[in-house]
């Protein structure tokens, strides 16, 4: 929880390279949150953290997904805060399993349900140290996580669960478009991106497209994150692959399926990281490696909606 000490971020031009933004905002020992629920998971940011080898991280996310599993495989994560750790619709996160099953030195896990993680971010973003939710009665989850506590309603005397605020040192989100000040517009699935940004000490917004502020101002209801929360803006087209960006490119479901066998074995896992992360300088090289065929296959077919009228 903050004590009203955050300063608004009002610089006019926050555009940095991914390398600069990560270097400046992500430090060894940080609690990080790369947000995005299936949609808008910024793999480009995860890969840059891998390249810079920033370790000792507490990694928080509802769904660690492949992006955090890669950080775990590289040994950069000391603790995982999460609610569902799998490869959606496919299988397991194998680095995570190797670090938790039959190991002498298991990784620290702090585990909630999705609602619990959402509630942690609601508290963190709202300046409250806790958030109440009607959940967990009868479940063993609170027994496995001492941070889940109870509170009594002053009106009904009913007991409710609470979770503590989550305030990441740095939150990274990806959006369809933002201006140089970081005013970010998102459509399609919103996940907990807004809450994750408002909860964080430092914020990086990665974007498919940098637009003029006038574009933002023409449709202010579309803005998910006001720029005064944002430290750095990174322009990184295709920054989410194999995740997706509505209106830009589809999810690479084949990759998620293939990942099961790539990641099951440490050797092929390391080979993958070596080829697609460590030996590329950044996202444009990565994109080139994907190949034109795949890029064309995943590129979205246009399906534009109508605008609305803001006149008065």
């Amino acid at each position: 929880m903050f004590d009203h000490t955050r300063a608004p971020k009002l610089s006019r031009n926050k555009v940095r390279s991914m390398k600069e933004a990560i270097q400046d905002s992500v430090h060894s020992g940080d609690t990080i949150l790369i947000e995005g629920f299936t949609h808008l998971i910024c793999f480009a940011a995860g890969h840059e953290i891998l390249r810079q080898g920033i370790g000792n991280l507490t990694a928080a996310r509802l769904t660690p997904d492949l992006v955090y599993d890669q950080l775990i495989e590289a040994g950069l994560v000391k603790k995982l805060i999460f609610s569902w750790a799998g490869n959606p619709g496919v299988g397991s996160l194998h680095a995570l399993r190797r670090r938790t099953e039959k190991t002498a030195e298991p990784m620290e896990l702090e585990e909630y349900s999705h609602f619990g993680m959402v509630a942690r971010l609601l508290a963190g973003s709202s300046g409250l140290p806790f958030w109440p939710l009607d959940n967990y009665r009868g479940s063993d989850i609170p027994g496995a996580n001492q941070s889940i506590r109870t509170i009594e309603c002053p009106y009904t005397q009913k007991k409710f669960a609470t979770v503590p605020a989550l305030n990441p040192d740095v939150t990274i989100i990806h959006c369809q478009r933002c201006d140089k000040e970081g005013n970010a517009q998102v459509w399609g699935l919103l996940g907990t991106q807004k809450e994750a940004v408002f909860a964080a000490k430092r914020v990086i917004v990665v974007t498919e497209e940098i637009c003029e502020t006038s574009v933002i101002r023409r449709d202010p209801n579309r803005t998910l994150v006001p720029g005064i929360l944002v430290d750095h803006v990174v322009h990184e087209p295709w920054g989410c692959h194999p995740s997706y960006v509505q209106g830009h490119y589809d999810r690479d479901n084949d990759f998620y399926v293939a990942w099961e066998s790539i990641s099951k074995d440490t050797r092929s896992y390391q080979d993958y990281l070596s080829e697609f992360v460590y030996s590329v300088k950044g996202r444009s090289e990565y994109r080139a490696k994907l190949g034109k065929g795949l890029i064309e296959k995943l590129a979205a077919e246009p399906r534009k909606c109508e605008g609305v009228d803001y006149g008065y």
Partner: protein
Amino acid sequence: MATSLIKPSERMAARASAELKSQDVVFVGIGLPNLACNLARATHAPELFMIYESGAVGTVPDRLPVSIGDPTLVTDSLAILSQADIFQLFLQGGLIEVGFLGGAQVDRFGNLNTTVIGDYTAPKVRLPGSGGACEIATHSKRLLIMMSMTPRTFVPVVDFITSPGHRFVSQRTNAGVERDKLKIPGNGPTTVITDVGVCQFRSGEMVLTELYSGVTLDQVRKQCGWELKIDDNLLEVPPPSETIVRILREKLDPQCLYL
């Protein structure tokens, strides 16, 4: 089409879809539940109202969503809400009529484990965890469970209660307590759809009420980790019609992602 050619997963999807009425508001999970919902929509329940925990409301997917956050769930949906709204307004607000869950283990009271096999701190198998399951089991008015029945999955005591059923017999915190005493808002599991038959809950305990044609009671008894109660009026469920199997195979899951 001979019954023998029909896969158990197809029978499960077909039987689960029959649980859904047009205009039911259902919280859709990935995998077989998703297939079952889309089958219902393609057949007897065209107005099934589907909500996904990713935030998509009133979806009309035109391909089988591989994940609950697939872009096809967004395009042409009625509304996209934040996940805070999905969990607070829809689930906690009591607007979800039907929830769907599966798991690695279930016990006779419908407690589900998707967290660990073995001890929590030193697990034999680390499973994905709750995701939205705990709150779906807490708040859905009706909860449907879809799981293949084996002695490893239908167990006397689950290793970890991720999602609460009707009575809690875990070695952990809630041993012996009943659901109603804890004032859990949703009604708990109502039906378990397996690959051999269907169970309902009587006084909070699973009872086999339907057996798939071609399956014997002996087979079921061997698959279940406890002495499963059998209903006096056990029904035999015929195999799904050729039409339904064709919709499943050709239209809904041609790549056999879940079938």
